[in-house]
C-alpha cells in the first residue's frame, strides 16, 4: 500500500503545481456580458467571410451585418424596396441601361480610411476576375462586358461598364436595360472591397485582426467551429447598433439548438422542424413570415409521358396543393403561378386548378385510357424528411386521382443535382429562393438559356416575355408582362407544377425585441433590442 500512497502523493503534488495556471472555464462566452450580447445560432461554421467569394446563407448572415453595399433594403416596406446605403441616391438613364449612383461622403472603414467609389470598383474587379473563382460572379453579368471579363475574353477591366464620374460618383452601364438593377446591389457579392487589405494579408485577410469593414458591426472573434463574435462598430455612419455584441454558435442539429434555447443559452434559432411547429406556435418568440421562395416539381418533357402536353396538364390538375400545405402544416401557401405569394408579380388566378375529374379525362384523351399502358414514371427528390413527405403524398394523390402508380426515388443531394443535369428524372422536385425581391429571379429560371431549367422546355415566346419584363421600368406594364409569362408557363405549356410558396420560421428568446423578419431572411441585427 505504501507504493500506492507514494503515487497518489506524487500525483497530488503535480496536480497542485500545474492547476495554479489560469482556468479557461466559460471561454465560450469569451467574457462577454450576457445582458449586452445577442446569442444566435449560425447553424454552421461560415465557409468564408470574404464577401466576394462566399455563397452560402451562414456567411451571408454575418457579412450582411459587418458590411454594407451601395444599396440596402427598406425593411419597413413589405415589398422591400431599395433604400440608400453607401449610395445616397441613384437614377436610371437611357431607359434603365445606365445607372448613376451618388456616393455617400464621410463613411469610414474600421481602420479609419474613408470609403470611396474606387472601393466599389475594386470589389467588382475582384468579383469578376477569373482568378478569384467567385461563385456569385454571375451577379454582375448584366453589367456591360462583365461576363466576357469573367470568361477571360476581355483582359482589361476598364472595358467593363463601371466608372467614376463627376465628384466621385459611380456610373454603371449595363448590357441591356434592367428595371431592378439597384436591388441586385443589395447582395454581398457586389459590396466594395479594400484591395490594399486583401493584397496585404492574402487568404488571411478575413481574420478578425486583419479584416476591414464598414457595417454596423465589426468582427471581433472568429473561433473556428465554435463561435463568432461581432461587436458594435461605433464609427458606423448610420444609426448605431443597439446591442453591443452578437455571438454566433455553430450548431448543425436543430434539435440540439432547440435544447440549448430551452436552457436559456440561445436567443435566436432559424431552422425549425415542420413537425414541431404546432408546439412552437404558442411560444411568444415564434415568428412566421412569407419568403420569396417556392417549391415546385419539374417535368422532363424530353421523354414520354411528359412530352405529351395533355399528360402534363393532367398531372398538374391532379395534385391538390392545399392538401400538401395542410399536411406540412408549416404555413406555406398553395401556389399555382410561378411567383411566390406576397411579392410583386404574384398572381392569384394563373396556373392549373385542382380538378381530378378533368385531369382523369385529359389522361384518357392523351391515349392512356388503359392505365396499365402508362409508362413508368419516377418522381425524384433529394433525401430530406419534408421532401419525402411531399413526394409520398403526391404519389398517393396521383394514384387516387389518376389511377396511375408512380415511383418515388430519393438521392443524396449532390448525386441528385448531378442526375438532374445528366439524366433528368420524369418528375423532380426543386425549390428556388430568390436572390433579390423581384419576380425576375423566378421568371429567369425557366428560360431556355437558364442553367437551372432541367425540364428541356424551351419557349421563345417565354424568353422574349421575360427579357421584356426585365427591362420594363413601368411597374404596371411589368406586372402584365409577367402575368402573361406565368400563364404561358404554368397554364398553357405546363413543364412545371408549382406546389407552394414558402414561409420562414424562427424562434426568439423572450428577451429579444424589434427583431426584423422579412421575406428574404435578411437578419439585420442593428435594430434589435432587449426588453
Amino acid at each position, binding site marked *: 500500500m505504501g507504493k500506492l500512497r507514494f*503515487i497518489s502523493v*506524487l*500525483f497530488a503534488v*503535480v*496536480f497542485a503545481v*500545474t*492547476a495554479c*495556471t*489560469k*482556468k*479557461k*472555464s*466559460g*471561454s*465560450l462566452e469569451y467574457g462577454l456580458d450576457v445582458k449586452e450580447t445577442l446569442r444566435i445560432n449560425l447553424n454552421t*461554421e461560415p*465557409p*468564408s467571410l*470574404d464577401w466576394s467569394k462566399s*455563397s452560402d446563407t451562414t456567411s451571408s448572415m454575418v457579412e450582411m451585418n459587418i458590411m454594407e453595399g451601395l444599396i440596402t433594403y427598406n425593411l419597413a416596406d413589405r415589398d422591400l424596396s431599395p433604400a440608400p446605403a453607401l449610395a445616397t441616391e441613384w437614377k436610371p438613364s437611357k431607359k434603365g441601361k445606365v445607372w448613376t449612383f451618388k456616393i455617400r461622403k464621410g463613411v469610414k472603414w474600421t481602420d479609419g480610411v474613408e470609403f470611396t467609389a474606387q472601393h466599389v470598383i475594386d470589389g467588382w474587379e475582384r468579383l469578376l476576375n*477569373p*482568378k*478569384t*473563382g*467567385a*461563385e456569385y*460572379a*454571375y451577379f454582375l453579368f448584366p453589367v456591360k462586358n462583365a461576363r466576357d471579363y*469573367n*470568361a477571360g475574353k476581355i483582359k482589361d477591366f476598364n472595358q467593363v461598364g463601371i466608372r467614376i464620374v463627376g465628384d466621385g460618383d459611380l456610373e454603371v452601364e449595363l448590357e441591356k436595360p434592367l428595371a431592378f438593377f439597384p436591388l441586385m446591389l443589395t447582395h454581398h457579392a457586389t459590396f466594395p472591397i479594400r484591395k490594399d487589405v486583401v493584397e496585404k494579408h492574402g*487568404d488571411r485577410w478575413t481574420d478578425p485582426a486583419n479584416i476591414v469593414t464598414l457595417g454596423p458591426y465589426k468582427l471581433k472573434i472568429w473561433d*473556428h*467551429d*465554435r463561435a463568432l463574435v461581432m461587436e458594435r462598430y461605433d464609427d458606423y455612419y448610420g444609426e448605431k447598433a443597439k446591442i453591443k455584441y452578437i455571438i454566433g*454558435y*455553430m*450548431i*448543425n*442539429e436543430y*434539435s*440540439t*439548438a432547440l*435544447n*440549448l434555447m*430551452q*436552457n436559456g*443559452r440561445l436567443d435566436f434559432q432559424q431552422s425549425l422542424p415542420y413537425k414541431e411547429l404546432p408546439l412552437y406556435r404558442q411560444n411568444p418568440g415564434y415568428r412566421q413570415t412569407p419568403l420569396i421562395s417556392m417549391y415546385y416539381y419539374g417535368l422532363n418533357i424530353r421523354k414520354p409521358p411528359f412530352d405529351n402536353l395533355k399528360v402534363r396538364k393532367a398531372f398538374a390538375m391532379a395534385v391538390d396543393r392545399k392538401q400538401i400545405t395542410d399536411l406540412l402544416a408549416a404555413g406555406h401557401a398553395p401556389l399555382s403561378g410561378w411567383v411566390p405569394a406576397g411579392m410583386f408579380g404574384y398572381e392569384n388566378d394563373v396556373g392549373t386548378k385542382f380538378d381530378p375529374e378533368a385531369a382523369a379525362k385529359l389522361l384518357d384523351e392523351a391515349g392512356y385510357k388503359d392505365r396499365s399502358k402508362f409508362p413508368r414514371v419516377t418522381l425524384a427528390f433529394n433525401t430530406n424528411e419534408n421532401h419525402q413527405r411531399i413526394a409520398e403524398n403526391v404519389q398517393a394523390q396521383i394514384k387516387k386521382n389518376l389511377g396511375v402508380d408512380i415511383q418515388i426515388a430519393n438521392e*443524396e*443531394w*449532390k*448525386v*441528385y*443535382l*448531378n*442526375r438532374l*443535369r445528366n439524366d433528368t428524372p420524369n418528375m423532380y422536385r426543386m425549390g*428556388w429562393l430568390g*436572390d433579390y425581391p423581384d419576380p425576375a429571379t423566378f421568371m429567369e429560371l425557366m428560360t431556355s438559356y437558364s*442553367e*437551372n431549367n432541367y425540364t428541356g422546355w424551351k419557349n421563345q415566346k417565354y424568353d422574349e416575355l421575360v427579357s421584356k419584363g426585365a427591362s420594363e421600368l413601368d411597374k404596371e406594364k411589368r406586372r402584365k408582362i409577367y402575368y402573361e409569362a406565368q400563364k404561358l408557363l404554368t397554364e398553357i405549356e405546363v413543364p412545371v407544377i408549382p406546389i407552394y410558396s414558402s414561409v420562414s420560421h424562427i424562434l426568439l428568446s423572450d428577451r429579444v425585441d424589434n427583431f426584423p423578419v422579412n421575406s428574404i431572411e435578411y437578419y439585420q441585427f442593428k435594430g434589435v433590442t432587449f426588453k
Partner: protein
Amino acid sequence: MIARVWGAIVAILFANVVLLSFFNYEIPTVLWWAFGLSTLGGAAVYVFTKGLTFYVLRRILEAIFTVFIIATLTFALLRVLPGGPFDSEKALAPEVMANLAKKYKLDEPLLKQYADYMVGLVQGDLGQSYKYISRDVSSILMESLPVSVQLGVYALIVSYLIGIPMGILAGWKPNSFLDFACMTFAISGVALPSFLMAPIFILIFVQYLGWFEPALWDGPAYYVLPSVILGIRPAAVIARLMRASVLEVIHSDYIRTAKAKGLSARKILFKHVLRNSLIPVLSLSGPLAAGILTGSFVIELIFAVPGVAKHLILGVTNRDYPMILGSTLIFSYILVIANLITDLLTAIVDPRVKMT
C-alpha cells in the same frame, strides 16, 4: 523496477493532463513536455532495450505505406462519386464553373491531380478546402483534432472505468444477481444506437435533472454526456470480455493453488486475477479506439462538438475532396497508431507475447 517507476510517472502525468483538460485548465507547456518526453522517451528506451527497434520501425513504415494506399483508394472512390464540389441548388454559369475548376486544378487530368496530391501529401500539405474557402485542410484538422482526441480519450476512460469493475463483479460471482445485472447492462449498452441513447440521456440529465449542458464543448458540464454516451458501447464490450477473462483466470491452476495456500480472496483478486485478466482487455484497445472513432460521428453532430468527425461527414455532403481525404487519412493514421500502441502495451504487460 525501473519499468514500474516509469509506468507510474507516465500514469501520473497522463492523469494530470486528463484531469486538467477535463476541468478546463490551461495545461502548462512544461507538463506537455514532461508527458510527451517521458512517454516517448520511455517507449523508445523500452523498445530499444528489448530489441524491438526494428519491429517498431517496420510497423511505422508499414503505417505510412498503408496511409498512402488509403489515400489512393479514397481518391479513386471520391472521383467515382457523382456530383461535384460546386454543384448547388443554383446552378452556376459555365464561365464561373470553369474559373472554379481552374482555381482548384480540377480541370487537369486525373492522374496529374493524383500525382499533385501525393506530392503534397509527402510534404505534409493536404491542400485547400473547397468549402471553407482559402483555408488549409491541415490547419482545419489541426484545430479540430485535439477536441476529437479529448473526446475519444474521455470515452476510453469512461469505458474502462465502467467496463472493468462490472466485468470483475460479474466474473467474480458468476450466475449471481450481480452477474445478471452487470451483463444485462453490458448487453443493453451495445443494443441501442447512440443517436437514440443521446436524446434519452439529454432528456434525463439535462432537462429533468439539469446536471449537464445539452451541447457545445466548454468544460466538465459539457464533457460528461458525450463522453459517457460514446463510452458506453465500448464499456459493454469490455465488461463482457473482462467477465470471461476473470472466469478463465479463476479456473486456472495457479489461482487454485493460491486459494489452496489460503490467500485471502481480495488479495487473489487484486494480485493475480486482475492483472492476468486485464491482458486480453488491453489488447482490445486498438479495436475499441476504432469503435469510439465510429461513434464519435454521431456524438459530434448531436452535441455540436467541434471535432474532426463532423468535418468528414460534412465534407462528404459538400464533396470537399481535400477535406474528406485529409480527415480519412487522419482517422486511418490514428487507428494504425492505436493498434501499434496496443501491441506494445500488451507486450509490456504480458511477457508471453512475442513480437516479430
